[in-house]
């Protein structure tokens, strides 16, 4: 066991709480930075995909895991980010007083894509602020359907179902949106998003978000402006997801509305729940899960009897089964299990199962309003 001797308030504010953080996260950083020099192209692509999904996961985690607002429509923000990026870097957009259509470099196009998604987040956030729980989920679900429809019908911009080709980005002669350069771009973005999220969560706004999640009524009496903080959370979450969408556009190279359906939204929600709701680690673990599971299922199929393996719908079934099992047996997801395993070794040999027993929840005030 490690005992921390605290002598300074900054020790509680610091990201690295003790020297162990430098070792473990330093090693992890070393591995991810060295990976593209040792791996084949296929695995680099997979890891890049993982980082993109993880960025989107962090976006939804801030909203669902930390503010307690469950959204079933995050594919919409993902799509808005992707299409904005594709349009801005592709054909260029006609601007007044400029002869040629303007093609943006990614320094501008990616933030713009994120801001567009954030604005969409505010647009959906303000009207649905009064909704919570299942009602909010349905409202965001409806919003996602609307966006999906717009993406397929607004053919002058999105090309509809014929799809939109996404131009590659170049810095000098180097193609930025493929192979190792794109890997580092996505990794950099993920690290940036994580840093911003950690910063927010150790500041007043982040605490206000958690306060809203746990008890709106007392958050309000502590001076938290519910409407304002919820709108901020929505905007931030949508913006981060939009950024992931912008990266995703380059990863795919070809956009069509089918990439941004309700299934994508559900996948993000599964990511958040299975990864571990209410932790940034959970978003990363969840992204690994969501990407690895289909591959794992494909491998598993080879070992199953033909009659079972060939049954239609076996994959969604297993996906759903795992989700149900996680919710019942490990409400804090993979990250929760990770904490238990870690504690087991820290406490060895005196680990007590009861440490993580769910405590009695005391009665909350009757619903007000």
């Amino acid at each position: 066991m490690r005992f921390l001797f605290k002598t300074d308030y900054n020790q509680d504010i610091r990201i690295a709480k003790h020297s162990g953080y430098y070792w473990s996260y330093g090693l992890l950083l070393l591995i991810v930075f060295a990976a593209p020099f040792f791996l084949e192209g296929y695995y680099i692509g997979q890891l890049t995909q993982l980082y993109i999904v993880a960025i989107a996961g962090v976006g939804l985690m801030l909203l669902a895991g930390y503010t307690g607002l469950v959204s079933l429509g995050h594919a919409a923000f993902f799509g808005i980010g992707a299409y904005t990026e594709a349009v801005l870097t592709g054909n260029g957009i006609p601007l007044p007083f400029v002869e040629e259509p303007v093609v943006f470099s990614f320094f501008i196009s990616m933030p713009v894509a994120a801001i567009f998604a954030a604005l969409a987040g505010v647009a959906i956030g303000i009207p649905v602020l009064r909704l919570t729980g299942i009602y909010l989920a349905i409202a965001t679900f409806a919003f996602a359907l609307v966006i999906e429809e717009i993406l397929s019908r607004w053919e002058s911009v999105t090309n509809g179902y014929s799809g939109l080709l996404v131009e590659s980005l170049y810095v000098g002669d180097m193609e930025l949106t493929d192979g190792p350069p794109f890997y580092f771009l996505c990794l950099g973005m993920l690290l940036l998003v994580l840093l911003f999220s950690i910063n927010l969560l150790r500041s007043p706004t982040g605490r206000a978000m958690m306060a809203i999640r746990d008890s709106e009524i007392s958050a309000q009496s502590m001076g938290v402006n519910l409407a304002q903080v919820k709108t901020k959370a929505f905007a931030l979450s949508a913006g981060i997801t939009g950024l992931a969408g912008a990266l995703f556009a380059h990863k795919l190279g070809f956009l069509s509305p089918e990439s941004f359906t309700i299934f994508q939204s559900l996948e993000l929600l599964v990511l958040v729940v299975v990864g571990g709701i209410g932790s940034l680690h959970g978003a990363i673990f969840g992204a690994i899960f969501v990407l690895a599971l289909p591959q794992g299922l494909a491998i598993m199929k080879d070992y199953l009897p033909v009659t079972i393996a060939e049954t239609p719908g076996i994959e969604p079934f297993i996906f759903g089964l795992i989700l149900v099992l996680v919710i019942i047996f490990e409400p804090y997801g993979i990250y929760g299990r990770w904490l238990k395993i870690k504690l087991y070794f820290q406490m060895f040999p005196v680990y007590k199962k009861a440490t993580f027993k769910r405590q009695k929840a005391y009665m909350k005030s009757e619903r007000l309003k």
Partner: protein
Amino acid sequence: MTLFKAENLAINFGGVKAVDGVNFEIKQGECFTIIGPNGAGKTTIFNLISRIYDSTEGTMTFDGQDITKVPPHAIASLGIARTFQNIELFEHASVLQNLLVGRHCHSRTGMFSELLFLPSVRQAEVAHREKVEDIIDFLDLQHYRDSMIMNLPYGVRKVVELGRALCTEPKLILLDEPSSGLNVEETQDMSFWIDDIKKDLGITVLMVEHDMGLVSEVSDEVLVLNYGRMLAHGSPQEVQNDPEVIKAYLGEQE
């Protein structure tokens, strides 16, 4: 000096008059207690003051300002803090984080500087932490600083909630049944703290309480409600001997 004044305060839920024409004045630095049988409208008055409910009639004045129409999140920065009857803490957060949320009404940092965690944010955080540590010392919570609320026993949660309200640096603190669910010893501690809040911190206390021992120990003035109306008003001794009050609690003698 009058700190808080309610004039002709009333609220209806449909046909139920939960609070019906209540008048009272709280003087600076006193401990004012509202008692009454279940359903008398005590907590409703608290919810009216913290602006969770809109009053149907009447006005409330706090510190010379009309607060009848102030939005609920602005109440804390005016200087009114409250606790809840059934503990409304942020369960999935540590004691320290809960107390820091109490500092929210004093935080002036913007979201963008927080995303970058600029030095100004760090400074503000340390300053908030110092205030929080004062409250931790005041309530002897040092031992629980990093514990998650969901792992704490009921009695400690009650104290944490009191601490969170104190962290807002209020002028008036509303305590909704501070001793409910506490054992004799904890109730005794609570009565000492209420006395200290009043005398050392100079905070005016408005509380709802059923434990008459605690009420007569700490209160200066008592208001008795029944069915949303005022039944009696005076010092704890006067109120306890009031025939109307005895009738409301015990019924009439044959």
